[in-house]
C-alpha cells in the first residue's frame, strides 16, 4: 500500500469518523438523559439527507444546511412529545419497541414520498472543486467542508454544554443519571429539547453526507447498527467514548476497503498457492476471503466482544 493511499485513507477515516460522531453524540445525549436507546436515530439522519436534497433543489444547498436540520429537529421534538412520552409508562421495552417501529415507518414513508431508487443529491457547485492535490491525486473540497462542519458542530456542542444552563443539566445527567429526576417541572421540556437537538444533529449529518454517501431509503438501515456499535464500544452515555469509538470505526471501515489483501495472498508469501484440496469447499471459501470482505464483520465482532468482556465500554462508567 503506497503512502498516498495511506494518507488519503487517514483523511477519509477522520472524515467518516467525525460524521459518525455527529450521529453518535446525539444518540448518546438522548440515551444519557432519557435512558432510551433510539433505534430511529439513523432514520432521522436519512430524513435529514432527503430534506436537504429537497430544500437544496429549491433554494440551494447552504439554506438547506440550516433549514433541514431544524426541520428534522422539530420532527424529533414532535415524536418525543406525542409518541415517546406516551409509551414511557410501559417501561424501557415499550420505548425500545416504539423507536423500532418508528424506524420502520420512517423508512416506508421515505419510500412512499421519494421512491426506492437513489436521489440525485449533488455536491453544491460552490464546493465542487479540488481542494488540494497530493501525490498527484486531488482531494475534493466538499469533503473538507464536511470535516469543517463536523468539527464546528463538535466545538459548538462542547461550548453549549459548558456554558448554558441546559448544557449544565445535560452534563450533570451524563455523570449522575439519577440527577435528572431532580430537575423539577422542567423535565418534559428538557427531554423534548434534547431529543429535538439530538435529531437535528442527525439531520445535519444527513445533509452533509447526502451528496457523498448515496441518498436512498436503505441508508438508515445500513448505518443504524454501526451507530449502536459505536455507543456500546465507547461506553453507553459517554461522549468522549463515542468520539473515540467513532474514529475507531471510521478507521476500521475505511482501511478495510483500502487494503487489497486476500487470505490467499498471505499463504502466497510462504509459497502455498493452492488451498489443500482435502479440506474441500469451506477452506477454499476462507482462501478467497479478502480484507475488504472482512471489514463489515469487524465492528460487530468488536461489539460482541465488548459486551462480553467489558460491558461498560471503553469510557463508560455504567455497565
Amino acid at each position, binding site marked *: 500500500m503506497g503512502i498516498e493511499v495511506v494518507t488519503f485513507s487517514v483523511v477519509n477515516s477522520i472524515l467518516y469518523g467525525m460524521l459518525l460522531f455527529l450521529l453518535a453524540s446525539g444518540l448518546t445525549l438522548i440515551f444519557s438523559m432519557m435512558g432510551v436507546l433510539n433505534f430511529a436515530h439513523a432514520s432521522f439522519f436519512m430524513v435529514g439527507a432527503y430534506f436537504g436534497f429537497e430544500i437544496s433543489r429549491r433554494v440551494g444547498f447552504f439554506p438547506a444546511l440550516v433549514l433541514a436540520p431544524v426541520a428534522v429537529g422539530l420532527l424529533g421534538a414532535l415524536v418525543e412529545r406525542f409518541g415517546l412520552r406516551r409509551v414511557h409508562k410501559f417501561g424501557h421495552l*415499550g420505548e425500545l419497541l416504539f423507536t423500532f417501529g418508528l424506524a*420502520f*415507518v420512517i423508512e416506508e*414513508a421515505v419510500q412512499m*414520498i421519494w421512491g426506492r431508487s437513489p436521489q440525485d443529491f449533488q455536491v453544491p457547485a460552490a464546493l465542487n472543486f479540488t481542494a488540494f492535490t497530493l501525490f498527484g491525486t486531488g482531494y475534493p473540497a466538499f469533503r473538507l467542508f464536511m470535516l469543517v462542519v463536523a468539527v464546528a458542530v463538535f466545538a459548538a456542542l462542547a461550548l453549549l454544554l459548558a456554558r448554558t444552563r441546559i448544557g449544565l443539566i445535560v452534563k450533570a445527567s451524563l455523570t449522575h443519571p439519577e440527577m435528572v429526576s431532580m430537575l423539577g417541572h422542567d423535565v418534559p421540556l428538557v427531554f423534548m429539547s434534547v431529543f429535538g437537538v439530538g435529531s437535528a444533529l442527525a439531520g445535519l449529518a444527513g445533509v452533509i453526507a447526502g451528496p457523498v454517501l448515496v441518498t436512498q431509503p436503505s441508508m438508515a438501515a445500513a448505518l443504524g447498527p454501526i451507530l449502536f456499535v459505536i455507543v456500546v464500544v465507547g461506553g453507553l452515555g459517554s461522549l468522549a467514548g463515542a468520539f473515540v469509538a467513532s474514529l475507531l470505526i471510521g478507521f476500521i471501515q475505511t482501511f478495510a476497503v483500502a487494503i487489497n489483501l486476500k487470505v490467499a495472498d498471505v499463504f502466497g508469501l510462504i509459497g502455498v498457492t493452492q488451498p489443500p484440496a482435502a479440506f*474441500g469447499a*469451506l477452506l477454499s*471459501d476462507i482462501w478467497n476471503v479478502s480484507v475488504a470482505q472482512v471489514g463489515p464483520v469487524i465492528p*460487530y465482532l468488536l*461489539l460482541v466482544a465488548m459486551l462480553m468482556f467489558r460491558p461498560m465500554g471503553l469510557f463508560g462508567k455504567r455497565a
Partner: protein
Amino acid sequence: MTFPMTDTKLADRSAALSVAMPVLTVAVVLILLPNLFGSNAMISTLNYLGTMAIFALSYNVLLGQTGLLSLGHGTFFGLGGFIATHAVLRFVEADIAFPLALIPLIGGVGSFALGSVGGWLASGRGGMPFAMITLGLAELVAAAATLFPSIYGSEEGVSMDRMDLGSSFGLSYGPNVDIYWVIAVWFAICAGLLFFLSRTPLGLLQNAVRDNAERVEFLGFSARRVRMSAYAIAAGIAGVAGSLAALNVEITTVHALGASTSTLVLLMTYIGGTRHFFGPVLGAIVIGLMKIWLSDISPAWMMYFGLMFIFVVMVAPGGLAGILANGRALVRSAGFAPQSPILAGIAIAGGLSVAGLIIVIELAYRAGLDAAKGAEISVLGLPLNAESGLSWATGGVMLIIGVIALRPLLDRLDGKRHAIAQAGGAK
C-alpha cells in the same frame, strides 16, 4: 391439612380440561384446513402461515415469556433453513434414505446447538444490552455469511429438491399438501412442547426473570442460565420453522437470516400479543395474510404493518389477543349494555379515522412511489385522484373528524366506566 389435596385435585381436573380443549381444537382445525381450502395457492399460503406461526411462537419464549427483546431471532430461522437444506443435499449425495419429514429435527437440533453458544454470549444481562448483543450477533452472522458461499450460496441461495429423498410416512412430498401435513404435525409438536414448557418450573422462572431478574438471583437461581435456556430453546424451535420453510420453498437465501426476518417475527409476535400463548399464532396469521394479500393490492402494506405495530405499542400492549380477550370480557360483563352506545360511537369514529388514514396513505403512494401508474386510483371503493385536492381533502377531513371525535368519546367512556365501577362498589 386437608384443603390442599382437594384443591390440587380440583385444579388438576380443571387444568386437564383447559389443556384438552385447546389441543382438540387445534387438532380439528389443522385437519379441517386443507379440506376447506383445497386450492394449491391456498395450501401454499397455509404452509407459509404454519411456518410463521411456529417461528412466532418460538420468539415469544423470549419476548413474552422471558421479557427479552431479541433483534436477531431471524438468524436461527435462516440457519435452520441452511442446515435442513444441506442435510437434504448430503443425504441425497450419500444415498441415505432419511425421511424428509424428520429433516426439521436436524435443523432444530442444529439451531439449538448454535443457540446455546449464542445464548451463552448474549445472556449476561437482559433489557437493552441483550437487545444490542443479539443485534450484533445477527449482523455478525449475516455479514460473515457472505464470506462462505459454499455454505450460504451466492445471491440466489442454496436450493434442493425435496422429492430427492424419496417418500416416507406415505407422503411423496411432491404436492404442497404433503408439506402441509408435515408442517401441521410439526406445528402441533412445537406448540405442544412450548405450551408444556410454559407450565414447567423453568417456564415459571422465565416469567420471574421477565418480572424481576435481580430477585431471581436472590432466590438461588442464575438469571443468566434462565435467559440462556430461553434463548437456546427459542433458537431450536426457530430452526424447525426455518427448516420447514426450506422444505416448503426448496430454496434458502442469505436473506432468510437477515434483519428483515428478525423484524418480521418481532412484528408478528408483538402485534399478535405476547401475553397469551396463542397470541403470536394470531399475529403470524394476520400479518402473514396481510403480507400475502395486501401486497397484491397496495404498495403500502409495509407501512400498515409499521403503523399497526406502533398502534399496538402505544395503545394496546396486549396485542390483538389482548384486544380480543378484553373485548370478550367486556361483552360478558354487566357493564356492557350501558357502555355500548359510546363504544359504537368510538367504533364509528375510529373506523372513520382509519379509513381517512388509508385514503391519505394510498394517495401519497400514488403521488410518490407509484406516480408512474397514473393519478387515478380507487381506494375502499372510492374513485380518487392523487392530483385532485378534493381527493386529499376527503381523506384528510375523514381522518381529522375521526380523531377529533374520538377524544370526547374516550373521555365519556372513562367517565361511564368509573360510574359503573362506583355503582358496583356501592352495592
